[in-house]
């Protein structure tokens, strides 16, 4: 079998519309997830200048249950031609963008909505719904339940065995909350997080404190993907999809804490493929949305994408480097999962697109290459690079 680098998808599709509902504190939207999904999709269509009835593809990931067939009457869908879910959890976005692109390039669909909606209103606690009854007995029997606990052990390994300072976790949290202050849509915009407030916040699962962990919110977030041929004729500057590999290399997958290397967030295979497929290098990236279910996993994701190494992570991952507009790698410029809101990572896609359009609340001047890394530590992960027309 050939392992040749496949660049067939590079630049062939683009995100042309983004939409989202307000981010509600979990359980307070008063609306079911299906309605939130519809609102986000319709809003993304308005942004793009596309009639919702023209959507013919529906793609999501993880535990999303608001499938296209359920939305057709409300969208006046002419014909559903493609619908699919990327397996795994938050690791599946941005691979879902790659799946949408695959459907478009192969002629299966023309206008694909990629979306995620969650609502605790009338439903289960979100983290229970998200886990979809797939946590192993080896974990639940032994007091491990939430992803925070599993990820905590991996980050403990990162800190204690690999020598990456715990301060990198704190600085990632500080940068996210700093950016949220300027985002009117961010749930955490009112929180002034500083070193002392972080340091005195309660432990959740060591080495994670409260502010290392993402919050869960009720909301819907969606984007619209079309071919690169169609994209320039729509309302917004296109954010071209340069690459969005998903996967897991040997040593990764569902291994009940027997992953190698254990400090990893699972990106070693997909990151290598991303750079090879797009022709860009970490140093070319202008701005990054780093999915952080927990800060430590985001730190591992940055290391595995090659922005720094285990050895120099301490020098690179600093508050000053992580903030817009002048940091070496501004991350999570809307506040991210930590401080903007957690919709299973989907809001990071929209922020990656805003950076290319020049409309982020914390804009990086002239941003052209915009990275979005998927849910770290998942058994399968994915990562995507979006770019302006100049990057094609």
């Amino acid at each position, binding site marked *: 079998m050939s392992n040749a680098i496949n660049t067939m998808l590079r630049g062939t599709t683009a995100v042309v519309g983004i939409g989202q509902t307000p981010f509600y504190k979990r359980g307070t939207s008063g609306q079911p997830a299906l309605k939130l999904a519809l609102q986000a999709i319709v809003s993304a269509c308005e942004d793009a200048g596309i009639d919702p009835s023209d959507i013919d593809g529906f793609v999501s990931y993880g535990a999303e249950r608001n499938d296209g067939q359920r939305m057709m009457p409300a969208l006046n869908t002419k014909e559903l031609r493609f619908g699919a879910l990327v397996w795994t959890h938050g690791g599946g976005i941005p691979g879902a963008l790659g799946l949408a692109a695959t459907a478009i390039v192969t002629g299966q669909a023309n206008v694909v909505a990629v979306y995620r909606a969650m609502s605790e209103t009338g439903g289960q*606690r979100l*983290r*229970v719904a998200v*886990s979809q*009854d*797939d*946590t*192993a*007995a*080896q*974990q*639940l*029997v*032994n*007091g*491990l*339940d*939430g992803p*925070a*606990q599993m990820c*905590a*052990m*991996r980050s*403990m*390994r990162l800190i*204690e*065995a690999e020598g990456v300072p715990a301060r990198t976790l704190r600085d990632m949290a500080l940068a996210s909350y700093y950016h949220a202050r300027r985002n009117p849509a961010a749930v955490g915009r009112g929180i002034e997080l500083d070193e002392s407030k972080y340091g005195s916040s*309660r*432990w*959740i*699962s*060591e*080495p994670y404190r409260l502010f290392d962990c993402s919050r869960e919110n009720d909301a819907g977030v969606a984007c619209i993907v079309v071919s690169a041929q169609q994209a320039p004729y729509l309302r917004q500057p296109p954010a071209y999809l340069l690459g969005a590999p998903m996967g897991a290399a040997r040593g990764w997958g*569902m*291994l*009940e*804490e*027997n992953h190698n290397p*254990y400090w990893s967030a699972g990106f070693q295979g997909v990151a290598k493929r991303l750079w090879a497929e797009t022709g860009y290098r970490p140093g070319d990236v202008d701005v990054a949305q780093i999915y952080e279910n927990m800060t430590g996993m985001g730190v591992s994701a940055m290391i595995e994408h090659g922005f720094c190494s285990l050895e120099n992570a301490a020098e690179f991952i600093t508050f000053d480097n992580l903030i817009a507009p002048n940091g070496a790698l501004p991350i999570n410029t809307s506040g991210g999962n930590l401080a903007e809101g957690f919709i299973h990572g989907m809001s990071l896609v929209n922020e990656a697109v805003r950076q290319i359009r020049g409309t982020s609340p914390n804009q990086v001047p002239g941003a052209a290459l915009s990275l979005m890394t998927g849910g770290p530590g998942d058994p399968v992960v994915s990562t995507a690079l979006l770019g302006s027309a100049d990057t094609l």
Partner: protein
Amino acid sequence: MQYSFHTHRITGGIGADDRYWEALEEGTFELPRCADCKRWMWPAHFRCGQCGCWQVLWEPVDPVGTVYAWTRCWYTFDRTTERAPDVPYVVVLAEIPAADGARVIGVLRGPEEQLRIGAPVRGHIDAPSAKTKGYAAIRWELAGK
């Protein structure tokens, strides 16, 4: 023998580790290896991916190893609320050299002063209880030098 975990079955993960839980209820710590190439297969699975054999041998292993990773849990999540009275409790991921470095999860018992990655641990078996979701469970104890 009637096993407690059969009536409390957790349907997540790979689900090829029934013998692990049965053995614990019988009082032994067993880990799986391929019946043909003898590779240790952990987590347990249905087929040896390296040689293609479908037979798994479960072998008693002395439950000694070292701390590979750990976390101290200060918060109980929704499906493990039975642990609330124990907060904070420490979960240890122990590496077992006798099984080619298989890593086995267990809750720490006893003193925590020597807790660090690399510290030696020894396993003890707890009978099924509500805290362990009706399963027997290995508990790691820091063994000292």
